[in-house]
């Protein structure tokens, strides 16, 4: 189980900074910085910039995402914002609008 879980029905407004991995099923507005992995589950709504080591998205994100390792957009994911990561996968059924910077 993840160290930090923002479950369904929970809304955070502000800046969340963590060393731990994070699972978000609820709503987050503001900013999220994690040194570990971030998982945005189906049903989650994020209006925030996210920085993480790796990010997997099943829900909705409006904001720019930066990952030192990778970003995975799962089927059903919706991302409006720029991606900066050395690896990016976009699954069939994911929607994405924004720029990709793979920093070669």
């Amino acid at each position, binding site marked *: 189980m993840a160290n*930090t879980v923002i479950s*369904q029905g*929970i809304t*955070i*407004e*502000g800046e*969340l900074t*963590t060393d*731990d991995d*994070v699972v978000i099923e609820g709503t987050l507005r503001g900013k999220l910085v994690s040194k570990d992995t971030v998982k945005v589950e189906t049903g989650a709504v994020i209006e925030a910039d996210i920085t993480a080591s790796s990010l997997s998205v099943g829900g909705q994100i409006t904001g720019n995402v930066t990952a030192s390792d990778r970003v995975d957009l799962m089927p059903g994911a919706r991302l409006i914002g720029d991606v900066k990561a050395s690896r990016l996968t976009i699954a069939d059924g994911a929607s994405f609008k924004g720029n990709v910077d793979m920093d070669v």
Partner: protein
Amino acid sequence: MARTSSTSHGETAVLGKGTNLRGRIAGDGDLRVEGTISGDVALKGHLTVDGGAEITADVQARSVVVEGAIEGDISAQEAVAIRAGARVSGAIRGASISIEEGATVNGRIDADFELPPELGGKGGR
């Protein structure tokens, strides 16, 4: 689509040890805090503030258990339990309030109960 069968006892949200929130957190479910929060907490569920956790803001929840530190007012519809080792500075308000030996509390305690009339329940000042 995922059905949201919202029982008021959803799963517990957790802010882990290495987590620091600057901002507000609100919601229907329960929350366990192991990290630090500076910003208001407003929950419809239970709030647990673990030992080592620190909250600098007012908290509101159905019930509250404090083992860590809270600098701000605590307000609960049900019970507030201040456990041994906890540090609270601020007003505590709840239907029932318990403070264990070894806890540090600085502030007003405001428990909701009716005083019997012979003790001046309706007397006022």
